[in-house]
């Protein structure tokens, strides 16, 4: 009888433990798995588009017929479906893939551990944040099945096009609002947790760089998302209640005089959207920089070079990211004073990025570099993010932007930042913290089989886009630009890109196998398999509820590797001075 009761209790706790959990680690893993699913889904959308771009108007063999006559009659893609795929690829990858993975996943799992906290400050808010994200994801996913299909006005959803689009756009807006709530709740939680729940001795300049990155990221989310929340609500009002926030008077759409009362401005949306979406770029990149810094310090076995200037650069970057947004809008008829301002801020923001990247490269100097799987991804991040950053220069200067604006050059540029950039850092993070989350190490062989083809195919996808962009090929063309004369010199690259994209999909198979098969291995990783210095490695692997068997105290800076007064090549933050001279304790 008591056994039965016990089982009943266990059954309840399964839901509380794994589904509606308030444990930051479970929520982090929920975020990670959900985000990985959406990344895969968003990638599939792109692979479909790549078929149409490589072979415009040709029937997609075998699976083409599955999509139905209103999307792909006889396997031939319709422009409306192409536009849906494009809009949803961007939305899913940014708002439901990378950000939830970087902040919701890694942030949730790692930050409380790295600061020596038993959990987040507001565990229930944390749970609510995940479920808002989940609901937003479901709404976005479901929108493919509403009449007229999903949103099709680009991930930027510029009105008036989005105001007059089919009902999928309404779903997009509601989905966005749920996702934004999720991010706002998460951001508040991170900020309070990082400030309030630090372990004794953990001063701000003893933070691991990853904690700093999440801290600055949270401020970006907290301050940049509300304008888009408001803008989404305005657009929803425009669509549902006939307001005209973004509709000027006297529009004639398909020969019909618009009934909108007018008085609004389409440019207002762009300002509100990019006021979020540029800081959002840094939300995508800062946690990635944080992960790369952790992995590099660990695998060079020496402290980060220029840690303090990296932190100051990070804070400056976060601040500047709020005043560069209109460089996305140079060609909207902007006056010369405005454009001069935004060009200047854009050039200024490149300086802290250069400092951080340089510091990471120079951190390698004097190291004893281990080419583990996480390190390979972290190292590849550096030149890939470098290309992404450098190609931002001609786009950030209004004059050279005239030729390159809205071409494939732009796509190549930001994908270098977020795909072989951020996503590689995310992979580095997964390989690096997987032992902490599961108690098991992932296979190094499969990891390398994942890394090398991914690196090659990533470049096979995005480098040709630079060539296409310089030739002047526009984005978002359903037929890939077939009818234009100027694209003819660059059209053949579409096939190279598409084949690389499908190759990239194959290159993820070792990762998927590795991710799941490693769960079946025995738990032999131990608490600190990488011989690391930061606090998360003080906890058992996987950490129990409450994280630490006893709450750690911090004695020194985050990356005391190869300290000259210490025999081992790492001196953890949480280790009271056993062998080191007392004087070495203060950083």
């Amino acid at each position: 009888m008591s056994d039965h009761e016990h089982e009943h209790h266990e059954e309840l706790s399964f839901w509380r433990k794994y589904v509606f959990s308030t444990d930051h680690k479970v929520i982090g893993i929920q975020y990670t798995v959900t985000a990985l699913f959406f990344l895969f889904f968003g990638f599939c959308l792109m692979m479909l588009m790549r078929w149409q771009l490589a072979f415009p108007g040709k029937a997609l063999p075998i699976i083409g017929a599955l999509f139905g006559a209103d999307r792909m009659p006889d396997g031939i893609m319709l422009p409306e479906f192409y536009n849906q795929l494009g809009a949803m690829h961007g939305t899913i990858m940014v708002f439901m893939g990378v950000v939830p993975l970087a902040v919701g996943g890694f942030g949730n799992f790692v930050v409380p551990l790295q600061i020596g906290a038993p959990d987040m400050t507001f565990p229930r808010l944390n749970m609510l944040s995940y479920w808002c994200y989940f609901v937003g994801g479901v709404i976005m996913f479901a929108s493919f099945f509403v009449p007229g299909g999903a949103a099709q006005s680009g991930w930027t959803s510029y009105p008036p096009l989005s105001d007059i689009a089919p009902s999928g756009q309404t779903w997009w807006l509601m989905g966005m609002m749920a996702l934004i709530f999720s991010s706002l709740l998460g951001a508040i939680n991170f900020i309070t947790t990082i400030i309030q729940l630090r372990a004794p001795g953990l001063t701000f300049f003893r933070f691991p760089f990853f904690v700093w990155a999440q801290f600055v990221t949270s401020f970006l989310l907290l301050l940049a998302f509300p304008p888009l929340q408001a803008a989404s609500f305005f657009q929803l009002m425009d669509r549902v209640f006939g307001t005209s926030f973004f509709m000027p008077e006297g529009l004639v759409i398909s020969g019909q005089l618009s009934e909108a009362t007018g008085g609004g401005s389409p440019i207002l949306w762009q300002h509100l959207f990019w006021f979020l979406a540029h800081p959002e770029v840094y939300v995508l990149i800062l946690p990635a920089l944080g992960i790369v810094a952790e992995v590099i310090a660990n695998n060079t076995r020496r402290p980060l070079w220029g840690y303090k200037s990296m932190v100051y650069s990070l804070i400056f970057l976060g601040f500047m990211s709020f005043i560069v947004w209109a460089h996305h809008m140079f060609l909207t008829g902007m006056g010369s004073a405005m454009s001069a301002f935004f060009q200047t801020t854009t050039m200024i923001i490149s300086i802290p990025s250069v400092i951080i990247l340089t510091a990471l490269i120079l951190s390698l100097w004097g190291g004893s570099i281990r080419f583990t799987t996480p390190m390979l991804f972290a190292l590849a991040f550096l030149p890939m993010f470098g290309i992404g950053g450098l190609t931002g220069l001609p786009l950030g200067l209004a004059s050279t932007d005239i030729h390159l604006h809205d071409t494939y050059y732009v796509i190549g540029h930001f994908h270098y930042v977020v795909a072989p950039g951020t996503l590689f850092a995310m992979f580095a993070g997964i390989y690096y913290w997987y032992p902490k989350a599961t108690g098991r190490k992932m296979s190094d062989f499969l990891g390398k089989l994942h890394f090398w083809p991914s690196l090659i195919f990533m470049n096979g996808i995005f480098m040709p886009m630079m060539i296409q962009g310089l030739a002047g090929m526009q984005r978002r063309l359903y037929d890939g630009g077939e009818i234009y004369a100027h694209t003819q010199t660059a059209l053949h690259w579409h096939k190279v890109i598409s084949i690389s994209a499908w190759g990239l999909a194959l290159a993820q198979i070792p990762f998927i196998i590795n991710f799941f098969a490693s769960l079946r291995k025995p738990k032999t990783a131990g608490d600190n398999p990488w011989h690391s210095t930061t606090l998360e490695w003080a906890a058992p692997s996987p950490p129990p509820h409450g994280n630490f068997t006893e709450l750690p105290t911090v004695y020194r800076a985050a990356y005391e590797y190869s300290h000259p007064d210490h025999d081992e090549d790492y001196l953890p933050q949480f280790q009271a001075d056993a062998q080191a001279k007392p004087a070495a304790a203060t950083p």
Partner: protein
Amino acid sequence: MDRFLGLPDLASEHGARLDYATELVHWLMFALFIIWGALFVFILFRFRQGRNPKASYKGLQSHLSSYGEVAVAVFEVVLLLGFSIPLYSERVDDVPDQSEAVVVRVIAEQFAWNSHYPGPDGIFGDTRPELIDVESNPIGLDRESEGAADDVTTVNQLHLPVDKPAVIRLSSKDVIHSFFILAMRVKQDAIPGMEFPLWFVPTVTTNEMREKYGDDFNYEIGCSQLCGLGHYRMRGFATIHSQADFDAWMEEEQSYLGGEDEDEFWG
């Protein structure tokens, strides 16, 4: 460098300076990438675990990198002040007056480019949305208004004289489009409810280009802002005439306007 970058043919006065700026930026990018890349590869080789089993706690002592960062900043200042800001300001601030330029209104719609010429009197007639008729009056021109009688409208055909500033007053009837003529190195969003000018001086006529590339050659007007299902086929053509040919074309267009009933021409 421009060959290496694969920039398309150029046929406008200001375009050469824009291309030069593009080349300069790319030189900087290549130089930085090569320097960083070489350093990166060298470090990976030199400090791999096999060769350097014990890491150095202090690491690099030199602060040479600060000079590198300053150099990048200086180069960016040069790009900004020397090229980008003046070049862009010239595009938006120095729009020539109607007396010395050909002024055309271009009104974008899903998925076509309408042109509106003021005719010999130089006065644009009024346009009103309620007069728009997809077939006969796509821009809603009020022929009764002042100066409208000699106005010329075309669809997807833009005619301009060579070596004379062309001012395009750009707007849209419905959603946001983006107007560009690649060889002229101009691109600007057409935003409903607003009108912005863009300007350039064409330097090569269509006929000269045809001598070079064959009779199929046309300057293309393209849309570079997603504007709906037909975005990919929103293409028009620009013809750059000699001044004499342009005048002849305008005269011919005028002759079609003579009668009360424009339909006469269309039979």
